[in-house]
């Protein structure tokens, strides 16, 4: 029953979703509502489970003095201190909110800002005209990059905007639509396999049958 139980649940849940999405009666009865509530509850439980799991892993790191174990102490201290503060002050507590906004915001912005430097360096090192395809890619990239900034207009006039727009709106869209359609069909096929019990990786099975 360890494998059959989750599979039965998966099939029932997916049938409810299909019925409530594609059939008038399903929409009328609003069958998705309880399923959505269960999802939110499961989400919260999964979060708690992740919390426990993270604690166990990092306590082990500290016990075994693995490389970087000091960072595990910082992680656990921050995690539990913030949890306790959140439980005392609740979601919109003054200090709870202040710490999140004033620490997470600059840290997150800093991380993203660093990407600009890496992209500059990566573009310089990676864009080489090794093959014909790489040359086409390089030329397109230069036109789009300069065409998306006012300097492109200053150098080439309206021709820059035209080329940039054509690359983005014609070449790019054609490629992206192909990729998106492929993803959609692949997703549908995978969903069908899960519903039919052929795909079992999510319940700890060997993956496919």
């Amino acid at each position, binding site marked *: 029953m360890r494998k059959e139980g989750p599979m039965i649940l998966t099939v029932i849940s997916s049938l409810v979703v299909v019925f409530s999405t594609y059939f008038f009666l399903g929409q009328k009865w*609003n069958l998705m509502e309880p399923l959505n509530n269960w999802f*939110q509850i499961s989400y919260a439980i999964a979060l708690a489970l992740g919390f426990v799991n993270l604690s166990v892993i990092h306590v082990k790191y500290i016990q075994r003095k693995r490389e970087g174990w000091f960072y595990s102490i910082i992680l656990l201290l921050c995690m539990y201190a913030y949890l306790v503060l959140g439980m005392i002050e609740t*979601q919109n507590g003054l200090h709870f909110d202040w710490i999140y906004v004033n620490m997470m915001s600059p840290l997150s912005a800093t991380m993203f*800002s660093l990407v600009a430097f890496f992209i500059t*360096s990566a573009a310089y090192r990676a864009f*080489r005209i090794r093959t014909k395809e790489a040359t086409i890619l390089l030329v397109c990239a230069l036109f789009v990059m300069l065409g998306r900034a006012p*300097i492109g207009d200053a150098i080439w006039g309206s021709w820059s905007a035209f080329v940039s727009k054509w690359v983005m*709106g014609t070449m790019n869209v054609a490629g*992206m639509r192909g990729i998106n359609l492929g993803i959609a069909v692949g997703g549908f096929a995978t969903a069908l396999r899960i519903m039919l019990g052929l795909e079992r990786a999510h319940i700890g099975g060997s993956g496919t049958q």
Partner: protein
Amino acid sequence: MERLMKIDRRLLYLVSVALVAVTIFMPLGLPVKVSPLAVQTYDAIKNLPDDSVVLIAPMYDPGASGELNPMLRAILYQCMERNYKIILGNTNWTLGVAIAHDMITPIAAEFNYVYGTDYIEFGSKPGGAVWMQSAKTDLAGAAIVDYNNDPIGQFPLIQAVPTLTQEYIAAVLVLDCGTPGALEWLQIITQGTSIKLIVGEIQMSVPDSMTYVQSGQYNGMIAGSRGGAEYEQLVGRPGAALKSQDTMSVIALMVALFIVLGNIGYVTRKR
């Protein structure tokens, strides 16, 4: 010549910082032409019926604020100038609502908007796409409390908008930088309805989103920092995006130049 292939990355970083600093203090003042896409987006919001209710979802975090904050500011000004009622909030992007709260508060005061009647902030709710499905059929039930932790059902604006359906809202404006984002709003809330979906995208997401603009599923898109600058001009409120265009220009030129130099080194080495 081979040396051109091996320019120290620290030099690249240094030149980048220097160029950013120089253009901040000595702007070039390059003109920014407004694109047809920006005009289409502007018109899509401008042509909503009077007294429309719009939902603005800041689905981003501080990492994307450089590109998306100016768009949010311009959109807020445009909506308030048109007297639209605003419901502000998102799902799963907790810092996005904090950024938006700091932005909407002074603008709302400027236009004498009354909280709860003319605009409301429901904060950030966990659940992503699943939360959107719940909000579609019962907004107050899904949101429960507002940004300030007060019961949201008591506010007139929420009482007037019981569900996120075309009977009650005219447009969803999404500032988007990942998942969940504009695509989830499209799939769950706007697809197959008369609700307009307008997105503001970071430059990185523009290629993917362009397909939805062309298919008409997105009724407009503000594309990256350049799009933000164009939009600020259309709204008549020049701001950070317009100021940043000189920096964008010199950095793009610098990267292009280094790429060309690297390739000159590569070609001459082969010979």
